[in-house]
Structure formats: structure tokens, C-alpha cells
């Protein structure tokens, strides 16, 4: 996957056919886990902080619902155009950010499902198939995040 054109807030990426298949498969898996509650502060013990935390978690749940809706649009065939070497994926700026957030949600979700390990590779040679799926998905989501961002300068 590589960026072939960027102009006026529109981004065009070229993907090999197998890359496109992988990307679609990954996005279809969103979300990979239940949303874990987050803390809004590590030191603030006041009651207002509790209110803010509640609002943050509600807002994150709503945001995830929105991402879920948009995810289906992102893998709509209209976003892709067949070319000689594979497929062109056309995204506007907002869609690109959404795709990044979806991919990172998947990556972080897999990491959480694996028990939030410090080392981002399996520590034992034998992994059960479910764990293997999480490791693979986490890696692949990271690969596509990287490809989406790395050529933006």
C-alpha cells in the first residue's frame, strides 16, 4: 500500500489485491472487544472528576458507534477503483482519520485482549489459535496505520 496522490484534502492509495483483501477483512472485524472504561484523571479525587469520567465514557461509546457506521462505508466498493497493479482507494481527510481510528481501535483492542503485554510479540513459542489471531490482527492493523501515515509529509 502506498500513497499515490494527495491533493485538496483527498488521498489516493494504491493497494495490491491481497493488501486490499486484508484491509477489508480487518475493518470488518471492528470492534474486536468491548469498550473498556477509561479514567479521566489519575490524581483528581473530586466529585466533578467522576462526572467528567462518566461523560467521557459515554462519549467514547457514542464515538465507537459512529465509527462502526462509518466503517461499513469505508469498505464500500465505491471507494475503490480497479487499476492494472491492484486497487486505488480514495479517501477524503475525514475518512482517512476515521480509518486510522478504526485500525488503532482494533490494534489496541487486540492488545487488551492479550492482557496488555509490555512486549509486543508472543513470549512463548506455542500460542493457542485465538491468541495467534489477536497477535496477527494487531500487527496487521499497525502495518496499515503506518502506511496511511508515513507518507503524509
Amino acid at each position: 500500500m502506498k500513497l499515490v496522490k494527495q491533493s485538496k484534502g483527498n488521498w489516493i492509495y494504491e493497494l495490491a489485491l491481497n493488501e486490499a483483501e486484508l484491509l477489508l477483512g480487518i475493518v470488518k472485524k471492528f470492534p474486536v472487544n468491548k469498550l473498556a472504561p477509561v479514567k479521566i484523571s489519575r490524581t483528581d479525587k473530586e466529585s466533578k472528576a467522576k462526572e467528567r469520567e462518566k461523560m467521557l465514557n459515554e462519549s467514547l461509546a457514542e464515538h465507537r458507534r459512529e465509527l462502526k457506521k462509518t466503517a461499513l462505508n469505508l469498505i464500500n466498493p465505491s471507494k475503490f477503483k480497479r487499476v492494472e497493479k491492484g486497487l486505488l482507494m480514495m479517501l477524503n481527510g475525514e475518512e482517512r482519520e476515521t480509518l486510522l481510528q478504526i485500525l488503532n481501535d482494533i490494534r489496541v483492542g487486540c492488545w487488551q485482549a492479550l492482557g496488555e503485554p509490555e512486549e509486543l510479540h508472543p513470549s512463548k513459542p506455542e500460542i493457542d489459535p485465538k491468541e495467534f489471531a489477536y497477535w496477527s490482527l494487531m500487527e496487521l492493523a499497525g502495518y496499515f496505520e503506518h502506511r496511511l501515515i508515513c507518507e503524509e509529509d
Partner: protein
Amino acid sequence: MGAGIAKPSTPRQAPYHIFMPSVLEPVKKPVIKRQSKASDDLAPTFYVVCWNDPVNLMVYVTHVFMKVFGWNKEKAQKHMLEVHEKGKSVLIREGAEKAEFYVHQLQNYKLQATMEPAE
């Protein structure tokens, strides 16, 4: 004859000490009453802090900082490296509402961001 016209005396220079007070008066400093923290009119401010985790890619964290705060790449990278090397970075100091807004934005991108009361 009387005294007659007095002979003009030669002008004498006044001794310098008559222009200067011999003793300096103590300067009284105005007493400023310090307001207690509770009666302070200023609204509390918060630090927006981003915490390190092993899962978010460095290039992704830099991108998010640029998007959320409108920073250039250099500044965004500086804060990303601070998160990576020191475990956290204070990104900005704001009032409650704005700090909360930024935390929501960063959390939408799955970064571990919190707002901590500024002392």
C-alpha cells in the same frame, strides 16, 4: 555711619549635606493582602497529560498530536518522544472545559490521556 551697604558676600556653595536627608526614612512597602486560594476568582486549570503505552505506534502518536493540537511535526515529535522516554508528557494547560475537550479528542484516538489539576 550706620552699617552702610553690606558688602556683598561671596556666594558660597551650599554644603551638599543639606540636600540629602541625613537619615534615610524607611520605605513602607504597601501591604498586599493575599487572597486565599478558595476566594481566588481564577478558575482552576488542568494539565492534559498523555501517558506511555507499548501499543500505540510512535508515528501514530505524532500524527494525533498534530491533528488534535494543530502542532507542527517537530513539536508533536518532541512530545511523543517525551511520552516514550519519560512515561508521560504534559501537552497543554487549560481550563476545565478545554482540557476535557482535548482529553476526549485524544481518547477517541485511543491514546491514554488524562486531565490533572494544576497546582
